[in-house]
């Protein structure tokens, strides 16, 4: 589903990603961990072209991200084409980023209506079903400012799911939440993984990684230091840097 080959990213003269290789199979949950500043969020944002990669290749579902290849030349896609590709990839942000001027339900039906062109009734019906699914069926008409962080994040997940994405990206989805609200969000994510959604999750929740992850990837200083099944990596990390990191977070 996702194939990254020596992906590089420069911010000015600062090399943030120094050749990331990663493979995510359909239906698989990949959990990315690593110290802050390691480049894990940047890598996630490259997957839907929120950040442009500076080198290497990155493809989703067999198609290059943000570019198209013709012969051996690579062209950047137009704004519209990038947008169409992004619509197939769901993303959940650390700070939720719900649209503040819209109710929970309006947040969810916005893109299906105006990007996919679905009619209002269909979008609303599906939106309500999704709110029900994340346990917020009764908060359809609440504005984000009147929802708790955990509720906002669950609406944000429903908003991403409303586009029927083939891949879901989670950028530290529980890092901005009060501890007692983390559980509800993780529960929704676990259900989603159980339903066979392909997910790439940047997180510090080692419990979630162990329970739900098919693959655990440790990124440090812009490279993949170690990867494997969560159980193996957590129980017997091979690299000193992985050991050092895990000893701090476990």
């Amino acid at each position, binding site marked *: 589903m996702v194939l990254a080959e020596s992906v590089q990213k420069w911010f000015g003269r600062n090399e943030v990603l120094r050749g990331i290789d990663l493979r995510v199979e359909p239906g698989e949950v990949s959990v990315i961990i690593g110290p802050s500043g390691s480049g894990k969020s940047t890598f996630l944002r490259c997957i839907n072209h*929120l950040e442009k990669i500076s080198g290497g290749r990155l493809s989703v579902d067999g198609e290059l991200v943000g570019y198209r290849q013709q012969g051996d030349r690579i062209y950047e896609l137009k704004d519209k084409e990038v947008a*169409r590709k992004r619509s197939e990839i769901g993303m959940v942000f650390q700070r939720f980023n719900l649209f*503040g001027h819209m109710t929970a339900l309006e947040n969810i039906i916005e893109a299906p209506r105006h990007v996919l062109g679905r009619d209002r009734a269909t979008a609303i019906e599906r939106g309500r079903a999704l709110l029900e699914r994340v346990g917020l069926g009764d908060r359809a008409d609440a*504005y984000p*400012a009147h929802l708790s962080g955990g509720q906002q994040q669950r609406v*944000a997940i429903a*908003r991403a799911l409303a*586009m029927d994405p083939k891949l879901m990206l989670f950028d530290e989805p529980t890092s901005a939440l009060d501890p007692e609200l983390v559980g509800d969000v993780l529960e929704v994510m676990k259900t989603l993984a159980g339903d066979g959604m392909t997910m790439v999750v940047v997180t510090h929740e080692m419990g979630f990684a162990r329970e739900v992850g098919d693959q655990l990837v440790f990124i440090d200083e812009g490279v993949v230091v170690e990867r494997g099944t969560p159980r193996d990596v957590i129980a017997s990390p091979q690299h000193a840097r992985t050991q050092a990191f895990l000893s701090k977070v476990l």
Partner: protein
Amino acid sequence: MSAVVVLAIVAWFVRAALASHFVDGRVVRQYLFSPLILKGARNTVLVAILSQVVGVILGVIFAVMRLTKNPVLKAVSGFYIWFFRGTPVLLQLFFWFNGVPSVFKHLTIALPFTHVVLYSTPMTTFMTPFMAAFLGLALNEGAYMAEIVRAGIMSVDEGQVEAASALGMTSGATTRRIVLPQAMRVIIPPTGNEFISMLKTSSLASTITYVELLRAAGDIYSTNLQPVPLLVDAAIWYLAMTTVASIGQHYLERHYARGQAREMTPGFLRRLTGNLALRGKR
């Protein structure tokens, strides 16, 4: 105690004004609804609303241009704001009314690169006092609105744009449906001030012979030699207009405040209108 002193001073002024027959109430009443004053008031409202609407549209366009990455659009917008904000609006009115017709004798609209003329008229026919006032006020207002809209757009969290992009919305749709509606909360209050200011600034158009409210009053008192009652008439109409405008602003603000955690407190106007309603019942 301070209130007593202030009231005493106010009372003294009012008494002095009444005693000196400063204002002749009969003349005020005689002209308040006279045809020329009504025409002036209508023209003031007309040119102010048109200029403000076009100013807002220009403001949105130039603000978006200024915030793009395209260096040409950025520079054009920057120059426009610099120029129209940096020169007096009165100068701009003179420029359109006196300057332009003195240089361009005809206004001709032709298909580009051909000799097919679609429209041609002497410039003096086209550049009426109304047209010059409208162009001057709208273009000047556009420069101020551009800065107001820019501040509004920048007040919207970057995360909103990212979320919209991630959902597959194009940058145009993101601006229209996500950014601008949320920027409105910041844009509306200063825009209300701008419109109130526009109602009054339009009086400058009296200098280019546009018969708006102040010019109408001036034309009357230049013949009847009663400036004070006619200025009072004009003041009454200006106050009526600005009062209506502030009430409209209040409702607009309330509309765009939806979704805010902090509910809007009933403002000065709400209390004022509340009081008026009470008084009306008695």
